[in-house]
């Protein structure tokens, strides 16, 4: 049997983390293949609902990353995002959703190596946690019989 390979999706801002991940590539620093990057203009743009969608679509882990505080290309998108994350994270945790599966980070355009580290450490964390079947089961209503009210 194959070892469990976590599916990780990364929501990143265009200006810092996406560019940082570009630099990881330019620097030829290797990291795990498990992560797929979705490019947003800014962390401020990242709708919390998309995180839920990612889990329901089978993601086992999520990376959210953008510019360091004060470095936002749009001045304050990351500050808005950060407040939202504080609340969202707490709510998810309260509802029994495993927030260890969501890695928040700041990765600048110059931090190619950090990006690789974030990916690798997230993959390892999620690998240890195993597949997020709890959430996927909730989302699996279409494959099984819909429960009767």
């Amino acid at each position, binding site marked *: 049997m194959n070892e469990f390979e976590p599916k990780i999706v990364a929501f990143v801002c265009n200006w810092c983390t996406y560019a940082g991940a570009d630099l990881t590539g330019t620097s030829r620093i290797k990291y795990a293949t498990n992560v797929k990057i979705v490019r947003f203009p800014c962390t401020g743009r990242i709708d919390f609902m998309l995180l839920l969608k990612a889990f329901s679509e089978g993601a086992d882990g999520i990376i959210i990353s953008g510019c360091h*505080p004060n470095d936002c290309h749009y001045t304050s998108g990351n*500050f808005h995002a950060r407040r939202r994350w*504080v*609340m969202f994270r707490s709510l998810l945790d309260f*509802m*029994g959703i495993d927030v260890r599966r969501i890695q*928040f980070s700041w990765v600048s355009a110059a931090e190619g190596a950090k990006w690789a580290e974030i990916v690798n450490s997230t993959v390892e964390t999620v690998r240890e946690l195993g597949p997020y079947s709890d959430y996927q089961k909730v989302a699996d209503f279409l494959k099984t019989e819909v429960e009767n*009210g």
Partner: protein
Amino acid sequence: MDNVKKRAAELLKSEAVKVVIGYTMGTNGKPRAAFIQNAEDVDSLIFNAQCVQNLAVYLSKAEIKQLGKPAIVAPLNVLRAIIQLASEMQIQENELIVLGVSPDGELIDFQNFSAIEKYLEDFNMEVDAKEKETLEKISSMSLEERWKFWNEELAECFKCYACRAACPMCYCHKCAVEQNKPQWIPVAAHRLGNLEWHIMRAMHLAGRCVNCDACHEACPKGINLNFLTKLMLNDAQEEFGYTGVTLKEGNLLSTFKTNDQENFIQ
């Protein structure tokens, strides 16, 4: 309450308002909303501890707006909702008259919204000790237990949206759950649809909820969904020093501080 009635009658007689929104005795011994349009009818107004429905919800209703300028009987919860609605540009000071009522039913005169805001400063809008205990009880469960707890709780939800309809802050004409391009939240009341709906509801009320519990009172299945918004309120206070409703524009999540805590961010 007599002063409230007197004031209501005066307002109606002088046509300063067209309708007084207040509480009256309903069926089965439960109070309910009344829309009094004639001064003779003010005697049916009541106020007691059972008056838990948040009447501010009617301020956003087109059918009630059509009746003309309202006065509203406003205990603490309604006052808070009025201020929050005002900060979100949903009501204007000159569009209504607020008949504040103290917990024992006495009339409190408010010259303007600022006076209400000032009055509210004396009432800390926080999750009370017993509710905090419940929050802590849930928080102290294991991750699996919490997951199970909320899954069971939300399994009861059949998405009648009474919680939304009863909430004075859920005034949107088209709720996000009804947006279908894209369909963010499954319409169906299955596990995913319910989970996502309640997460979104709590997030949308973060920093806006006036902690009136109208949602819980309205829920025909008695779901403790108000504890999600209470958690948000509690967090807002603990994390960001949120103190309650104000007339200031912007809210908890549309503003920020550069030194907001971020110990979870790598």
